[in-house]
């Protein structure tokens, strides 16, 4: 059981590495991977594709910055943010904005595993943890 899961995860990683074209995930290659799994690994398909989906989602998240904001976020600011994050991470970053009134004021940016917190809610949480 454990070794089957390990083999599925190994295969998913292999397929994930094969899904890149010029340093970026290629929709065509991803489509090819899906076909390949269905055809050659039907018995393991669910397990392999779940692991593959996790890797693809993590890769997409690395290139997509989700910006949660309490007030209005001008487009110029969003663009500046995308540019600055792209420079910092050394890769192309697209910005997706999401209004979140629970932040009270400020921003919360999530890119890959990283979160940049500069909202009032975040600061209040830190304050309550510190006191």
């Amino acid at each position, binding site marked *: 059981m*454990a070794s089957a899961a390990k083999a599925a*995860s190994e295969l998913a*990683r292999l397929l994930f590495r094969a899904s890149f074209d010029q340093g970026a995930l290629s929709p065509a290659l991803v489509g090819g991977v899906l076909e390949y799994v269905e055809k050659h690994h039907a018995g393991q398909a669910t397990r392999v594709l779940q*692991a593959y989906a*996790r*890797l693809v989602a*993590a890769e997409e998240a690395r290139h997509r910055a989700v910006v949660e904001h309490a007030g209005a976020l001008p487009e110029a600011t969003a663009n500046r943010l995308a540019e600055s994050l792209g420079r910092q991470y050394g890769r192309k970053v697209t910005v997706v904005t999401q209004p979140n009134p629970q932040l009270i004021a400020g*921003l919360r*940016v999530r890119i*890959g*595993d*990283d*979160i*940049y*917190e*500069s909202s009032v809610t*975040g*600061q209040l949480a*830190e*304050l309550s943890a*510190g*006191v």
Partner: protein
Amino acid sequence: MSTVLEQIEQQIAKLSHKAVKKNTGVIRAVADGVAHIDGLSDVMYNEMVQFPGGAIGIALNLEQDEVGCVVLGDVSQLKEGDEVSTTGRLLSVPVGEALLGRAVDALGRPVDGKGPIDAKETYPVEKIAPGIVARKSVSQPLLTGIMAIDSMIPIGRGQRELIIGDRGTGKTTIAIDTIINQAKINKVGLASGDPKFRPVYSIYVAVGQKNSNIVRTMSALEAAGALEYTIVVAAPAADNPANQYLAPYSGAAMGEWFMENGKDALIVYDDLSKHAVAYRQISLILKRPSGREAFPGDVFYLHSRLLERAARLDGKGSLTALPIIETLAGDVAAYIPTNVISITDGQIFLETDLFNQGIRPAVSVGLSVSRVGSAAQIKATKQVGGKLKGELAQFRELAAFAQFGSDLDARTKAQLDRGSRIVELFKQPAFNPIPIEQQVVTLWALQKGYYDPFELRRVMPAAASLREYFATRKDALLTKIRTKAALDAEIEGELKTAVDEWKGSFAG
């Protein structure tokens, strides 16, 4: 302005408008105190991670697409999908003199109901042991108060001496006696006002023990007035394996504070067999490859890195370690015992047979050894007890041989008689350490044959009476022996007069 408001103001001032960066992950699975986490791409090995609800964990397995963390806290509140974040800090525990007299858990949090601990500093739980240059050889004694040990298997400050034996052979008692003796010496030394006196503070780490046993140990320490010089780190059997795994390292960090600050400390790990079992449990849940007896491959390193932290530092203090190992049916050749024997600077082996024969402490002189302690033994003990180990070993050999024959020559009979007297003399009740000057007097009387006229069963009462006589009437002589730490012609003359006086008064 009230202090509470000031505190809040300070906290607000600390919160800058700069964005705070956190590296996060998501729990994929939680089982048996271990969480498998997706993400946490920036996490460092052994870094503390923050779980929701205030629980913390340590990242122990950094794999390609997941991180394995042990959870130090309530696992029942955690669920799949919960967010976890890195803290950028290694696990640290409070250290310092504020912890003396307190019982804490593996994270240094008080568990004795005596309120918060006002510790000013913290030390990382995992620390690289001092290197070669920083160390100094062991040359100062650490007196256990147990005659059989101080005279034949002496321990020095900065040494690692293993206490090994089956269950119920008095391993913990030896450790507790040693802690009590340090407290007694500390009281006398601090009261004397001697600027050269260096007190020894103790740390008792209880791993995987019953809570009732920990309470009993603490009561014994308190009754003997030793708790005020002792820190108890408790990771009882009911605690999760992660805490049991961490407790010895936390205790070592607390001991290191004393060592780094020019003080001497003693640490007892009670016991490392249960520690290894807790680590095996964690390792198996983390799916690390298992080896002999299902222990992971790094079980040697688990104990070597811990025990190497005990040292005597040049220009600073020392940390002496007394690890305890429980054997099964006296098998010292098992995996964990051989590992720890090879790491330590000697071992005190306790035998079930001796214990059952009423020889307590049940120290097996033949199998016990102290590799570096003789350099730390005081001259007076060497003078009166230097030959005891050889005599006792000879006695054991002769006693085994004499079982088969009845006709023994006079010399053999005399050797057997003397051996039995030494064995009798070394019997000592629990929690009753004997000051070193009293030990010297007792052994000097043995050396000079003062116990020879008594029947064997009267040797122990005679020695107790001699010590009592000296404690009540010859305090000045005892102080002289303690301060000079050697027997010269003058002291020997005084000793002879005093022991002769005692002999006249003792009914036999």
